[in-house]
């Protein structure tokens, strides 16, 4: 094959089959990928991988076929990897028999064999299923400057922006190939130039912007470009504490799903913005001003595509991406206050909160009072991916509400703010 990347003799050997035919195809895919973006060389990956494909969706036979080829060739990720959440948890996310039948026999019938494939390829452990792999409890936290071979748009944007790691928005399968090779082609967000901002976003709101709507607005405007956000620190502070990280997690997921943002800088807050300031902004950067009216415009653009647009909500999903330890505590306090306000002891809707298994265990152990409160309110905790749940055609027809712009984007779920969701869930309707 013809290629432009400069390969070492070892890399060239792999391409020519020194490590077998399958590894040569892995290398060919990565070289073509690098060539498409003008990468000159491979750079070593640091630490564990993170895969986006966690679901044994029967229709993904082509993906399973690649996995089988890799396993058959004895290939695996030596550093191990985490992976996105599992799709189903019947104990905490109740389904009727027909929904179960569709999940187990038609949609995710290949879940068990697929997880067996993941284990053979280097899955970190049975609790390694989460989109928020970068949380301390999950133990896949990159350091500033680490080069990653990750997918999952919300994890990539968090690792780049909040942790200062370096990762492109890799697709599923490509991220696995990079982790197996232990190298990725160097381009775009792996380079200093690629991390410079093409947009200045000026936040001029009169109150703290909803993270999900702000991220949505920026994603829709800048698409895949890097934004440098000014004025947000006035609302969320200049300290990267747990509360701020939770806000940025949700903000980033919205920028990545409503657009294709892989990295953002927040003035006076995120590590590279603190270190380099305006030097991160390109000379030709465009400006986008966000005020209250702009956020309102963006929110009003979200369509209501429920089967019955006037239906009463049935189910509430909170936590896409997965909630942090601190966010679980915040939700417990939010529901406690709303229940008191409405004079109730339990929520009136089926409320499901999603968080990684190790975070739920941490929450249960170190904030037992809040954990017990959530359960006593009738709220379920699970580690599934709500998006995968909503992919069931029967579940997708339900009137689901969510505080996640990402879930809204990919499903029929309707978006409401944290406060609105809480009030609706307690009241049992609008």
């Amino acid at each position, binding site marked *: 094959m013809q290629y432009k990347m400069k390969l070492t003799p070892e890399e060239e050997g792999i391409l020519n089959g020194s490590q077998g035919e399958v590894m040569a*195809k892995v290398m060919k895919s990565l070289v073509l990928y690098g060539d*498409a973006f003008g990468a000159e060389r491979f750079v070593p990956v640091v630490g564990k991988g993170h895969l986006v494909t966690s679901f044994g969706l029967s229709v993904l*036979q082509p*993906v399973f076929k690649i996995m089988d080829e890799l396993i058959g060739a004895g290939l695996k990720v030596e550093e191990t990897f985490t992976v996105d959440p599992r799709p189903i948890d019947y104990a905490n996310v109740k389904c009727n028999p027909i929904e179960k039948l569709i999940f187990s026999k038609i949609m995710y019938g290949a879940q068990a064999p697929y997880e067996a494939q993941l284990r053979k390829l280097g899955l970190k452990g049975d609790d390694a299923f989460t989109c928020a792999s970068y949380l301390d409890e999950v133990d896949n936290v990159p350091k500033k400057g680490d080069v990653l071979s990750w997918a999952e748009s919300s994890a990539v944007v968090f690792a780049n922006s909040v942790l200062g790691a370096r990762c492109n928005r890799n697709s599923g*399968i490509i*991220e696995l190939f990079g982790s197996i090779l232990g190298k990725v082609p160097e381009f775009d967000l792996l380079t200093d130039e690629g991390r410079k901002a093409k947009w200045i976003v000026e936040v001029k709101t009169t109150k703290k912007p909803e993270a999900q709507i702000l991220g949505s607005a920026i994603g829709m405007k800048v698409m895949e470009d890097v934004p440098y956000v000014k004025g947000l620190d006035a609302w969320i502070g200049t300290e990267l504490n747990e509360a701020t990280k939770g806000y940025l997690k949700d903000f980033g997921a919205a920028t990545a799903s409503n657009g294709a943002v892989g990295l953002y800088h927040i003035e006076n807050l995120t590590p590279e913005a603190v270190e380099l300031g305006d030097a991160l902004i390109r000379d030709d950067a465009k400006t986008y001003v966000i005020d209250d009216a702009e956020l309102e415009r963006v929110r009003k653009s979200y369509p209501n595509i429920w089967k019955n647009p006037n239906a009463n909500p049935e189910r509430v999903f909170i936590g896409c991406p997965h909630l942090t330890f601190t966010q679980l505590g915040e939700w417990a306090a939010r529901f406690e206050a709303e229940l008191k306000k409405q004079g109730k002891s339990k929520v009136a809707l089926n409320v499901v909160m999603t968080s990684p298994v190790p975070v739920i265990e941490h929450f249960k152990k170190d904030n037992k009072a809040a954990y017990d409160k959530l359960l006593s309110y009738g709220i379920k905790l699970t580690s599934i991916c709500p998006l995968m749940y909503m992919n069931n055609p029967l579940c997708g027809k339900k009137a689901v509400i969510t505080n996640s712009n990402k879930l809204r984007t*990919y499903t029929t779920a309707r978006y409401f703010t944290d406060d609105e969701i809480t009030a609706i869930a307690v009241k049992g309707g609008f």
Partner: protein
Amino acid sequence: MSKVFKGRPVVAGKINGKEAVVSHAGVNTLASFQKSALKKAKQVICSDQNNPDLYQKNLTDKVICLPKTIGSTTGGMVLYSVCAMGIAPCAMLFSEPIDSLAAAGVILSDVWVDGRTIVAVDGLGDDFLAYVKDGMKITVDEDGTVTVD
């Protein structure tokens, strides 16, 4: 009357007189393809509610003309899968430089799917996207030359 545009072939191939489907916004691959793929449908009907240009249009064996793709990082894997299933667009023509998810999808299809591919040309420019309309016939040459009739 035809108009010729020149881009860079990311996955080179020859396409003769196939029908264009045009999106002026970034195409969210997962949101567009997932519903039909899940149903194992014989054709992909775009299910992305946020893309009025493509929503509910048939994308199988069409030439998708777009700025780039956006959204979930399953995007490349989804493109590869629909290619292997035989329901992919026959070509993707990008007005802008190709994005990492689309590039992964067309490259994985090229390397790992036997007998099928998604031809991809990028950098065709804003003029291309302003000119091409749904239903126009598209011819693509191996060198990235795109002829719109």
